[in-house]
């Protein structure tokens, strides 16, 4: 603390200050919830806390998490992306189709470039036509799904290309570890830094927090949103390619409903649906929470449908807690 600074009130070490500290850190809720769930399943599901299950959980978490990072990044800038599951499937498909003919690295590059273009199209439609992104991206999701069924005739496609990308993205290493785990962690670190440590991150917060103010202060709000639309789509595309490479097959219903899972993970992780606030660490915890519930419920012997019910309940509880906690601080 700066001692010459007399005009600033020194922090008082009492409960209310501690509470306000916690309030300034909404992702703490996600961490606590995650730990609670994690301990619960570790105690009641005998094989939950085993290396094989944990790495298996991490695989699912990474695939959902990479997509969620992009969605959160855009959500913080104040826009939704409901097209991610469609982009995920389309990009995966494109990768399989191209990879069966070309070098897989080239196929991945083209597939991700197409994903970025879909994102830019989402952004352009939203910003130019002033249609809310909720609608443009919902439309895009349905359009992509429909086109995919048309293109494949509902058939499953099998990947028969080379193994380079598969090795880079999702090939089984040992004990259930996969490269996607490293990709996820690296992307969490990268985007967390981009958001909190750079000038661009500041613009993202301001754009979502109050776009009129951001614009008045010289931030190119449209460009920030457009870039984030592209990021969201590319992350969804990457996630799709990772999953396709794990399974080796795909069909048109691949990833259905994942857009809502990503939004749930964002909200559980403390991201504001209205934009302007969120952390990538929170997203990490949100995605982990979802993944743990999914595998934990299976391990405990609950029917698979419980997952949806559980996530639904978590989502509402998390949102309610965040709103309560935020009051008076933001």
């Amino acid at each position, binding site marked *: 603390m700066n001692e010459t*600074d007399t005009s600033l009130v020194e922090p008082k070490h009492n409960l209310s200050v501690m509470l306000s500290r916690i309030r300034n850190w909404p992702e703490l809720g996600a961490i606590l919830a995650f730990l609670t769930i994690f301990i619960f399943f570790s105690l009641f599901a005998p094989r939950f806390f085993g290396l094989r299950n944990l790495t298996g959980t991490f695989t699912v978490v990474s695939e959902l998490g990479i997509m969620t990072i992009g969605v959160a990044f855009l959500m913080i800038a104040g826009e939704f992306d409901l097209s991610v599951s469609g982009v995920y499937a389309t990009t995966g498909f494109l990768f399989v189709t191209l990879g069966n003919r070309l070098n897989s690295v080239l196929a991945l590059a083209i597939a991700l470039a197409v994903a970025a273009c879909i994102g830019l199209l989402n952004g352009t439609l939203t910003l130019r036509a002033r249609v809310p992104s909720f609608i443009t991206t919902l439309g895009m999701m349905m359009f992509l799904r429909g086109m995919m069924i048309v293109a494949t005739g509902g058939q499953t496609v099998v990947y028969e290309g080379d193994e380079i990308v598969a090795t880079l993205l999702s090939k089984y290493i040992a004990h259930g570890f996969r490269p996607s785990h490293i990709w996820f962690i690296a992307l969490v670190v990268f985007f967390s830094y981009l958001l909190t440590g750079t000038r661009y991150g500041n613009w993202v917060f301001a754009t979502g927090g109050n776009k009129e103010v951001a614009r008045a202060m*010289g931030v190119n709000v449209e460009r920030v949103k457009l870039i984030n639309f592209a990021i969201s789509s590319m992350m969804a595309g990457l996630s799709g390619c990772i999953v396709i490479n794990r399974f080796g097959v795909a069909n048109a219903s691949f990833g259905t409903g994942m857009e809502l899972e990503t939004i749930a993970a964002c909200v559980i992780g403390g991201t504001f649906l209205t934009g302007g606030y969120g952390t990538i660490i929170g997203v990490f915890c949100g995605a982990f929470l979802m993944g743990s519930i999914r595998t934990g419920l299976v391990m405990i012997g609950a029917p698979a449908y419980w997952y949806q019910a559980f996530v639904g309940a978590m989502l509402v509880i998390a949102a309610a807690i965040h709103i309560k906690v935020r009051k008076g601080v933001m």
Partner: protein
Amino acid sequence: MHQDFPLVRMANISKRFGAVQALDSVSIEVGQSEILGLLGDNGAGKSTLIKILSGVLPPDDGEIYFNEESVRFSSPKDARARGIETVHQELSLVSIMNISRNFFLGRELTKKRGLVGVLDKKKMDKECRRVVAEIGITVRSPNEYVSILSGGERQAISIGRAMYFGAKLLVLDEPMTALSVMETRKVMEHISKARDSGASVIFITHNLYHVYEVADRFTILNKGIKIAEFNKKDVTAEDLIETVARGEVIKS
């Protein structure tokens, strides 16, 4: 230091929105270190004029001179580069961001490190803390959210920020709306202080008593036309109110 020519001169500015002639050949000027009260009832064209001056809107017709040099602003950034800083009633701070991040929004301090601008948070916090203390606001840290600040504190920080970044002309658009009496007084002190440190001010308000206290000169608009200009010594606050309310100069 004192120059004879005005700091900013807007000449014959016109702006039309569809069927509405928002401004019809309006000319105003602001002297060096002068506080100009820009008055007029709702719909007079004050805000449009200010938006043109701050680069938010382009004029349909007319010229802007800054220190007698013809300028054209295509964005708020251009205007700000010249030292024209605008403080709007609600458009200056993002309430769910912290004070320091708001303070440097769009002008973040960065360390030189490649293409990505890496924020120099330490320096930003230090500078922000210093300015906030100078203004006389008590906060625990520059990392507190703006939402905990009162309206007056927000305006004070906006004005302090403008001065920190070397504002030559401070444009205040209804800065007292929704402020308490005590806070209004404080903000007025900040405005006088800004003028005393060499900046010029355009002050837009509905409350003529506020502006009368601090302004040196008044320009009155009505329905897009400039109807009157007064030096403070030539009018009383009551005269101004009459002129604004009637939309014409009263002969006395």
